[in-house]
């Protein structure tokens, strides 16, 4: 793709949509070659639009795009993978929306990151195939690494010393685990037990399917979720908005355990 071509082709995952004027929408797309970008779909909110279903958020789509003066314009869109299970299950849809928001927040426009695109597809594939919610920890850890914020889990993030096999503080401001000597200077964080540290280290080297197959104690899973949320919010310096929906959905599932997760008839 060169900047001189008037029309270019790319695949991408639709991250979000916002309406523009009477019948147009602007979509944020994350693509392997062109990074994150925005483009407008004209008339896409009309019932007869041919692109409408192909541009739903969380869809992996093949796109033909014309360069515009301010915003590029979609001229064709065709679904590669619609990830239906991500739309038809409340828990998985909440997780996928959270993943999409993180991609949006951690990327800047037009900066390509093919590794991150692969990670996004692998995460959506895993969630669509029914992977447990903790697979999102794998996504978060690799997202941090691929965007330059890799979590230090081998040695102390402050002094670089070896960490003894014991409960250790994960301090967001230090960027990882810190030894007892550095604890006071590292600021706040959460104490991660040895089992949790093993999970964090395992995530680095294994594949997403192997990680999905791990059996993690629910309390430990919750602790790791909280610890990684702290790190992410520290890096972003803001709240991840869709986290609230995710928490609300999780709260509802816990409240309705006798009748869990049935789909709408």
């Amino acid at each position, binding site marked *: 793709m060169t900047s001189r071509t008037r029309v270019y082709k790319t695949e991408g995952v639709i991250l979000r949509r916002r309406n523009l004027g009477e019948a147009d929408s602007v979509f944020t797309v994350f693509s392997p070659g062109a990074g994150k970008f925005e483009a407008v779909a004209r008339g896409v909110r009309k019932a007869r639009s041919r692109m409408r279903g192909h541009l739903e958020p969380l869809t992996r789509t093949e796109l033909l795009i014309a360069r515009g003066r301010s915003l590029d314009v979609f001229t064709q869109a065709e*679904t590669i993978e619609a990830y*239906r299970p991500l739309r038809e299950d409340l828990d998985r849809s909440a997780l996928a*929306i959270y993943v999409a*928001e993180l991609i949006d927040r951690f990327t800047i426009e037009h900066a390509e990151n093919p590794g991150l695109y692969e990670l996004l597809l692998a995460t959506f594939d895993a969630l669509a195939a029914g992977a447990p919610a903790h697979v999102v920890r794998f996504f978060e850890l690799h997202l941090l690494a691929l965007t330059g914020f890799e979590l230090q889990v081998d040695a102390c993030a402050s002094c670089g010393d070896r960490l003894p096999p014991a409960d250790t503080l994960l301090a967001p401001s230090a960027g990882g685990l810190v030894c007892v000597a550095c604890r006071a200077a590292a600021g706040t964080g959460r104490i991660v037990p040895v089992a949790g540290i093993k999970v964090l280290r395992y995530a680095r080297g294994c594949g997403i399917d192997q990680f999905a197959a791990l059996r993690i104690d629910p309390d430990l899973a919750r602790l790791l979720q909280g610890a990684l949320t702290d790190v992410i919010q520290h890096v972003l310096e803001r709240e991840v*908005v869709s986290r609230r929906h995710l928490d609300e959905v999780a709260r509802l599932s816990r409240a309705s355990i006798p009748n869990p997760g049935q789909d709408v008839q």
Partner: protein
Amino acid sequence: MAEPMAGTPEPITRLIDAFHKLPGIGPKSAQRLAYHILRAPAAEAEALATALRDVKERIALCSQCCNITERDPCSYCTDPRRDTTVVCVVEQPLDILALERAGGFRGRYHVLHGVLNPMDGIGPEHLHIRELLKRLESGEVTEVIMATNPSLEGEATAMYLHRLTGPLGVRVTRLARGLPSGADLEYTDDVTLSRALEGRQAF
């Protein structure tokens, strides 16, 4: 804010600013509209002013279904010919008009005034969900039809409400999804097509 020419009388500037705040109205359109009103007969301007005032003073939300109405409860909620055991949940008041135009539904409605949009921070507290739960808890309703749009947000809202109302034991249904009339199979997205196939019916 629109930038008026220096020396523009203050009432005109105020009108331009007011128009400029409306969605889809840029500074130039705001100026054009303001000068149109200035040139229009007094009666026309008066009618606009009255309409604006009335819409804020006389229109309220129906205490039962949250539809916009001049009389509370609204005409749908007081119509004795309507089935009180079936409630159709829609995103916006305009959706009721579309369903009424289509005909075929003789139950009651409930307007959420939006959908869950997790990325934009629109949560259940921003929608009229509490009012819906109150209606369902009364025990009269036996079926809730989720008529939110078949978009990511509409689906998420329908699934959320389904789970939320689960303990109440009310039957929750979803509008069928498939091909719109006049559609082109060639351009139809995979989700719609596969759902259309799943929902096929014998002649």
